[in-house]
Each structure stands twice: as structure tokens, then as C-alpha cells.
């Protein structure tokens, strides 16, 4: 399988390796686990945690499908069912989809742009811890039977103080705060890494498409997420301290909630699938042995999608009775998305047409992605039409649509991408046979589960119903969907088992098992703790395919953590910058922040008193240290203990 076994293009002699490994090492044991700022370590944890939430969300989905398999089924009571679908949506959107895309980027972007680590490594660590804390809080609530039950959208006034008793909606609102803080922190690190830490020569016209997609995604996160934090903070203040943002009786507006939520919620969908598009581009290029056709068009399409994403949110609100002329604008804007999406689809197929595709498992996911995502995109065009949307909105047709778009457009590429980069991360190859079986089960199970939902939607089945009566005639299609869901679940099980087995017993992968052209394949698998022995110099879009030895740049300090900064557009080296050592403060700050967030569910004064420990932690975190240049100078002049 291995096309390019043996030593990676960039390898160091043992002495220099040992020196660098010592400087970049993470302490051993529990202390090291809590203090690490290694982007690869954090990325791996992030990915594994994301997959755990994917499995939990999937189990919830299986429970729902079991309940809906038969009409009038009494397996799950309505309250539990409402919790389950709310948890499923919340988990998949906030604890799986966005975090795992950022997680992939945390692991991969430094490698893809040829950097030693991420920008802001401690912020990156903080992002992971806070994400984990939010997820643990949500699932603790579910176990205690106080999970949110107003849907992942938590529309007011249903989620407001009058109609959602107890603490359920508060837990939802604070989960949003947790995940958005985590998402923003990761987005800032990713954007800074891609803009400022690229290898010399990697101009914006040579940035790998996955990195491009993550750059745009990160900016979308930064612009979109504050809107939902506002929505959820208004909600919790309505519930906790008696404000009336969403209370129509006191001059508030339930529609304000929907505007704020969807101003985030629609970009959120693209935040989830733009990384998927980047993954598809990487896999396609490698497996077709050809640069992606139409690179500038692809980048422009990603950018266009990112901009348009912010002008579409009202298409989630066509049934709310907003002025119809205004709605028509959103119809046109929403349909326009088909242009960049369609152009990208053309470019991928053109790449296959012009290249020589090999059908390794990751490539199967690309083909599955095109077949599925295009169908979901086209049903999206249908939903953009105001009149048609008023019929299918909030029915199972919409459920089918967004699963085609999100599973087809983001999860298929993600599964392909994990299989594709797994050898880089672990140094071991997953089984191709098990990989193909998993793909076959996942692809057929998915279509069997979700295609019938289009039909039951057209036949009038609303979404978010815990049961339906036999006389509606929806039973057959629902049974089919349930069967498909089980097949899909079996596929995911095979997929994950394959990875677990391969991580222990898979054959050694070598640095570049698929013959890829990106920088991440220029270092060993798994990469050394410092990523690259010397800084690669990039002279083309696929540096490893240029046919000659990869040029490198030496001279970064090997006795301190030092990274190279380059200019934003031309990637010319500008300065050498220090990178922080392992630190416990991101973890401790997370504990303090979690106490504040969770406490504020119960009493507003926690916001006041809880902010004191957070402030103390942040002061300790940012306590001034000697500047990097001074550290290097002192080290050079032999002053002991200069580097803390």
C-alpha cells in the first residue's frame, strides 16, 4: 500500500532531534496531560472526544428511530423523547460537528502549512478543556433527567420562564456559552496559524484547500457565534432575572430570538460543511494524482459561500409571517448558494475526469459525498422557495434535507478524512477491507434511513413528534427509515472498530502512504513533537509532487520553543517568535470558568463572584514573562535559569 515508505523528506540527525524533542516535549504523566500545549496532542483529544459525542448523539438517534418504527409506540414517553431529540440536535451541532472540524484543523493545519505548532497554543488548550466541560455538563443533566427539551433551536417562548420549568433550558443556554467560547478560541488560533505561520513560499495562491476552507470557516465562526451567545444570554436572563427580551406580553419579541438564532444558525451549517469541502479537495487531489482542477475557482467558491451564508437566515422563518417581498430576497440569496456549490462539484468531478482516480477508502467517501450532498443541495434549492417552503418546512422533508446536507456534505468527508489522515496521526494503516465494508454499510444505511423521510414529509408528517397514529399511513416508510438507521449504526461501528484495531495493530504507514503532495506528508508518521526538523520551503501547490528534493530552511532556535512568522499574503519570513511552554493555567481557568457558567444556571450572583477566580486565573495565565528575544539572548550568554 505504502507508496513512499522510508525516511521522510525532512529528517534530522539524532543529536538535533534529541535537542528539539527535549525543548518541545510535554511533561510525563497526569501533569503533562493537564498542561500540554502541543497542538497534535490537543487535536487528537479533540477528535476522540468529538467522536465520542458523535456516538452518543447517534445512540440517541437510534432510540428515536426505534420509537418511531411503529405508530403509537409507547417505548419512550413524550418528555423523554423531547429530551432525546433536543439532545441529539444539540450534541450533533454543538458537541460533534463544529468541534470535530476545528479539531481536525487543530491537528492538521500546523502540519499542512509547515509550522512547528499552532498560534496561541494555550488558548487552544483552553478551547479543548472548556468544550469538554460543556459536554460533561450537558450529559450529566441528561443522566439526571433534566436535559433540555425545547429542541436544539430552543425557540422562545417555549424555552422561556413560563413554559419551560426547572433548569433544563438554562442548561441548554449555558451549554451554548461553553461551546461558543471553545469554538471562538479554536477559531482564533486556527486563523492566526494559517495567516501568519505558513512555511516560506506558501503564498495565498498555494495554501492547501483544506487550510483555505478552515481559514474561511474560522472567520465565519468569529462573526456568527456572538449572535447565538446573545440569543442564549438573553434567554437565560429572561429566565433568571426577569428580563423580557422574548416576552411578547411585555413588549419583547419571540421573533427576535429566531433572528438572532438563525443569524448564527445558517452560517453554522456552512461552518460545518466548508471544512468538509476542504477535506474532499485534499482527498480528491491525492487519489486522482492531480491538483484539484480550478484552484482559484474553488477558493472563490469557498469565499462566496462564506459571505452569502450571512444573508440567508430568514429562509428558516418563511412561515412566521414576515413581509413577503422581503422573504423573496432571501429566496434569491438562498438559491444563489447553488452556484458556488455547483461549481465546486464540477471541479471535483473534473479532477477525477482529468486525473487517474484510485478507489481507496477515502475516495469512496468522496464519491458518496457527491452523490449524497448534491441531492441534499437540490432539496435545499426547493426549500429556498417561499411558497414551497411553507408546505415542507418543519416536516420530515426538512429532516431528510439537512441530514443529506450535513451527513452527506460534512460527515462523509470527515469519515474519509479521518481514514485518510489516520496513518499520519498514528503511524499505522487502517484496514482497507474493513474500511470498504464500513463505507458500504454507512452509505446504504444512510440512504435507506433518510430517503424515505422525504416522502413521509411530503405526506404530511411534521418533525419533532414522538409518535403518530396508524391511520396516517406513515408506518411503512418509518419502519424502513429505522432499518436504515440500524444499518448506518452498524457501519459506524465497523468504521470505529477498524480504527481502534489499526491504532494498536495496523501495519506501519510510513511518512506518505497515499502519495500525497502536501507538507503534512513530508514529516514522519506520527510526526515528531516539533513537527518539522527544518522549515520546509514551498515552491508549488503540492510541494512533494514537484519531483525534486523539498527545499528547507534552517536556523530556528533549537534551545527554546521558536516558530517562524511569515507575511500574510506572500509568506515571506518576517520574524522568529517564541511559543509558550506547557501551562496548567488553561486547565485551571477552565475549572473557574465552568464554576461561573454552571453556577449562573442557579443564581445570577455567581456571575459576579464567579468572575473573581476567573480573573485571578487569567492574571496568572498572562503574567508577564521575559520576551522571547531576551530569553534567547540570556540563553546565549549562559545566564542559568533564564527560561522558565
Amino acid at each position: 500500500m505504502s507508496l513512499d515508505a522510508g525516511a521522510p523528506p525532512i529528517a534530522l540527525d539524532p543529536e538535533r532531534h534529541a535537542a528539539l524533542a527535549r525543548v518541545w516535549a510535554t511533561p510525563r504523566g497526569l501533569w503533562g496531560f493537564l498542561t500540554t500545549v502541543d497542538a497534535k496532542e490537543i487535536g487528537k483529544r479533540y477528535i476522540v472526544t468529538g467522536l465520542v459525542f458523535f456516538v452518543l448523539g447517534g445512540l440517541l438517534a437510534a432510540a428515536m428511530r426505534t420509537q418511531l418504527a411503529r405508530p403509537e409506540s409507547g417505548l419512550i414517553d413524550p418528555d423523554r423523547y423531547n429530551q432525546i431529540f433536543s439532545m441529539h440536535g444539540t450534541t450533533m451541532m454543538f458537541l460533534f460537528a463544529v468541534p470535530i472540524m476545528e479539531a481536525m484543523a487543530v491537528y492538521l493545519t500546523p502540519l499542512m502549512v509547515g509550522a512547528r505548532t499552532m498560534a496561541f497554543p494555550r488558548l487552544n488548550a483552553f478551547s479543548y478543556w472548556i468544550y469538554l466541560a460543556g459536554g460533561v455538563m450537558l450529559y450529566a443533566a441528561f443522566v439526571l433527567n433534566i436535559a433540555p427539551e425545547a429542541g436544539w433551536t430552543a425557540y422562545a417562548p417555549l424555552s422561556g420562564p413560563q413554559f419551560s420549568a426547572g433548569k433544563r433550558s438554562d442548561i441548554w443556554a449555558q451549554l451554548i456559552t461553553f461551546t461558543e467560547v471553545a469554538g471562538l478560541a479554536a477559531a482564533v488560533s486556527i486563523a492566526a496559524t494559517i495567516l501568519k505561520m505558513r512555511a516560506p513560499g506558501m503564498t495565498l495562491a498555494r495554501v492547501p484547500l483544506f487550510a483555505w476552507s478552515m481559514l474561511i470557516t474560522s472567520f465565519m465562526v468569529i462573526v456568527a457565534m456572538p449572535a447565538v451567545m446573545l440569543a442564549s444570554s438573553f434567554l437565560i436572563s429572561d429566565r433568571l432575572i426577569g428580563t423580557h427580551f422574548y416576552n411578547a406580553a411585555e413588549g419583547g419579541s419571540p421573533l427576535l430570538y429566531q433572528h438572532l438564532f438563525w443569524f448564527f444558525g445558517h452560517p453554522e451549517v456552512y461552518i460545518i460543511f466548508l471544512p468538509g469541502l476542504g477535506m474532499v479537495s485534499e482527498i480528491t487531489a491525492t487519489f486522482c494524482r492531480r491538483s484539484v482542477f480550478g484552484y482559484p475557482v474553488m477558493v472563490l467558491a469557498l469565499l462566496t459561500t462564506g459571505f452569502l451564508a450571512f444573508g440567508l437566515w430568514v429562509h428558516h422563518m418563511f412561515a412566521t409571517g414576515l413581509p413577503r417581498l422581503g422573504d423573496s430576497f432571501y429566496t434569491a440569496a438562498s438559491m444563489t448558494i447553488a452556484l458556488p456549490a455547483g461549481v465546486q462539484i464540477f471541479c471535483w468531478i473534473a479532477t477525477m475526469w482529468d486525473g487517474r482516480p484510485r478507489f481507496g477508502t477515502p475516495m469512496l467517501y468522496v464519491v458518496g459525498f457527491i452523490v449524497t450532498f448534491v441531492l441534499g443541495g437540490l432539496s435545499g434549492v426547493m426549500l429556498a422557495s417561499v411558497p414551497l417552503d411553507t408546505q415542507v418546512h418543519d416536516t420530515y422533508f426538512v429532516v431528510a434535507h439537512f441530514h443529506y446536507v450535513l451527513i452527506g456534505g460534512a460527515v462523509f468527508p470527515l469519515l474519509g478524512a479521518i481514514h485518510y489522515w489516520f496513518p499520519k496521526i498514528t503511524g499505522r494503516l487502517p484496514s482497507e477491507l474493513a474500511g470498504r465494508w464500513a463505507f458500504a454499510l454507512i452509505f446504504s444505511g444512510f440512504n435507506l434511513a433518510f430517503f424515505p423521510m422525504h416522502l413521509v414529509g411530503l405526506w404530511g408528517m411534521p418533525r419533532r413528534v414522538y409518535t403518530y397514529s396508524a391511520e396516517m399511513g406513515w408506518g411503512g416508510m418509518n419502519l424502513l427509515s429505522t432499518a436504515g438507521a440500524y444499518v448506518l449504526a452498524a457501519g459506524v461501528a465497523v468504521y470505529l472498530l477498524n480504527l481502534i484495531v489499526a491504532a494498536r495493530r495496523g501495519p506501519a504507514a510510513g511518512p506518505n502512504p497515499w502519495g500525497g503532495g502536501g507538507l503534512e506528508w513530508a514529516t514522519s508518521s506520527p510526526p515528531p513533537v516539533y513537527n518539522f526538523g527544518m522549515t520546509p520551503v514551498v515552491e508549488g501547490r503540492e510541494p512533494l509532487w514537484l519531483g525534486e528534493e523539498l527545499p528547507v530552511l534552517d536556523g530556528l532556535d533549537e534551545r527554546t520553543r521558536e516558530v517562524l512568522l511569515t507575511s500574510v499574503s506572500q509568506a515571506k519570513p518576517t520574524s522568529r517568535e517564541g511559543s509558550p511552554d506547557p501551562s496548567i493555567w488553561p486547565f485551571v481557568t477552565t475549572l473557574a470558568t465552568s464554576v461561573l457558567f454552571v453556577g449562573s444556571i442557579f443564581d445570577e450572583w455567581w456571575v459576579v463572584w464567579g468572575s473573581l477566580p476567573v480573573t485571578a486565573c487569567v492574571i496568572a495565565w498572562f503574567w508577564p514573562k521575559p520576551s522571547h528575544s531576551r530569553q534567547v539572548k540570556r540563553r546565549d550568554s549562559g545566564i542559568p535559569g533564564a527560561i522558565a
Partner: protein
Amino acid sequence: MIRPALRMASLSVAALALCGCRGVQTMLDPAGDQARQIDVIWRLMLWVCGAMYLLVLVFLAWALWRARRPPLAAPATGPTPAEPGLERGLAGWAGLIVAGLIVLVTASFLIDRSLAELRPHPLRLKVTAHQWWWQVEYEGARPDQLLTTANQVVLPVGRSAVVELRADDVIHSFWIPNLAGKVDLIPGRTNYVALTPRRTGVFRGQCAEFCGLQHAKMAFDVQVVDPAAFDAWRGRQLAAAAPPVEAQAALGKQTFESKGCVMCHRIQGSEASATVGPDLTHLMSRRHIAAGARPNTRGDLAAWIADPQGTKPGTPMPRVALSSEELNAVVAYLETLK
């Protein structure tokens, strides 16, 4: 690789074949002007999008077929010149998408405009959504002609109706797929939906916006009848309930008025005049009870009254302690409310 594509295509064909099916709650069997207009855009969308999907699949299958050519010696990198056909193809494809979108946006806009059209002298209704039932009021020329019912909408065929939509608690959505698209009922706002039924028949509407615990059981019956039958129905509904003659029913009335029932329900012509729950004056004219949760039969009525939480957990209707004689009497009384 072509196999999944084929499977999808055959599924799509099956879907098209099933489009002809009829039902009481389906948008594929339009029975009114609005639903028919939406059906036009649905069919247009299905054809245009179907054609585009087919094009993508054919191109994909072709590209995969070409994989059999001998492999490349070295990977093609950088701005490798592609086969010239591809660049023209990209421009053509983008042009085709733009053209398709222009057609669809224009059609969607025109049809949306047409949905607002009304026939002269529309019937006026007010629907108020509650957790989890529908209050329906028909406006009349005089105050005593205001008609209140619950969980049923009766419409004359061929005449437009304008339904004023309000919500009492949370957001709900009013949806009769066979007649028109859905419109939300939102606290603090008034929305309107126009319905122009063109075919007599029995249809079903259901709440389409998640509204809490019993969102799944918040439906209503829709009957489209000819104008004469509608006037007759309206006349009957305006009448007060006659006092029961039979002894058991009279006992039932007494029980109804002395137990919890009277706290929430209204029966015009009796002591019961609360407006918290559905108006029961002509309960027996309805096809279902508890907002579509059960058919309106003697047994279901008794079961519902005896244990509302068993049928619809979380419903605001409490369990009222009644002996079996009292329960039977109340049911007997309710059965007189024709």
C-alpha cells in the same frame, strides 16, 4: 460505484410514482387554490432539480469510468493544463446553473404573489392555538352570530376564507397540507392565511411548530362541504345545547356542572361558560376528541375523561374523580351535544 447512483435513481422513480397517492394530510393531493399553486412550483422544482442531479451523476459516472486509463507516471501538479473541454464545461455548467436559478426564482416569486389572491367576500375565521388544541371562531355579522368551536374547521367549497392566526402561549403552526402552506401562530403577533378549497372532502391539519410535550397530538379536522351544507352546519352550531331529557344524561349534566369540568369548558345553553378549554356545545359534530388524539366514540370519550394523562400525558386537562356511574352519565350527557 454506479450502483449507488442507480439505486438512488430507482428510489427517485418510486418516489415519483407514489406522488399520485391520496391522503387527508398530504401536499401531493392539493384540494385548494393555494396548495395547487404550490404543487406547480413543486413539480417544476422536481423536474429542474432532477435534471441537474442526473447531469451530475452522468458526469461523475463518466469520470469514474475513465479511471481505467493507464496510470500517470508522475502526479500532475500546479496549474497543470487541463483538457480544454473541461474549462468550457465549467463555464457552461455555471451558465446552466444561473439559468436554472433564474427560472426557479421567477416562478417562485410569481406563485408567491398569486397565493395572496382572494375571491370576493371571503369567509373570516379566527384560530387561536393553545397547548395543545385549537380554538376556532367564525365571525358573524352580529355578535350573536359569532360561532366558537374547537379542533375542527368547516369550509364551504369554492369560497375563499381568511384565517386570522393567534397564539395563546407558545409558537404553533397552522397547516392543512391539502389546502395551503403553513403559517405560524406567534404570541404577540397576528398572522393570516388564505384558503380557497376547490374540492369537498375530509382533510386533516396539524401543528407543525414544536410546541412542547404534546406537539405530536395537536391536530384538527377539516371538512370542505358545499355552501348549502355549510350554511346548515353554521345554523346548527349557532344554536344553544338543548337540556337533556333522558335521566342519565340529566345526571351527567348535573355532574358536569358540579365537578371540575365546568371550570374549563363552555356548553352554550347551560351553566358551563368557562373558556379555558375547548367549547363543547356541539361536541358530537366533531370527528375526533382531544385535538385528534382519539376518534369521537363513546368508548374513547369515556377513556379520555377517565384518564386524560393516559392518552395525552401532560395535557392541561386534569383527571376528575368520577364514579363509574358519574362517568357514564357525563358521557351520556356529552353524547346529547349534537
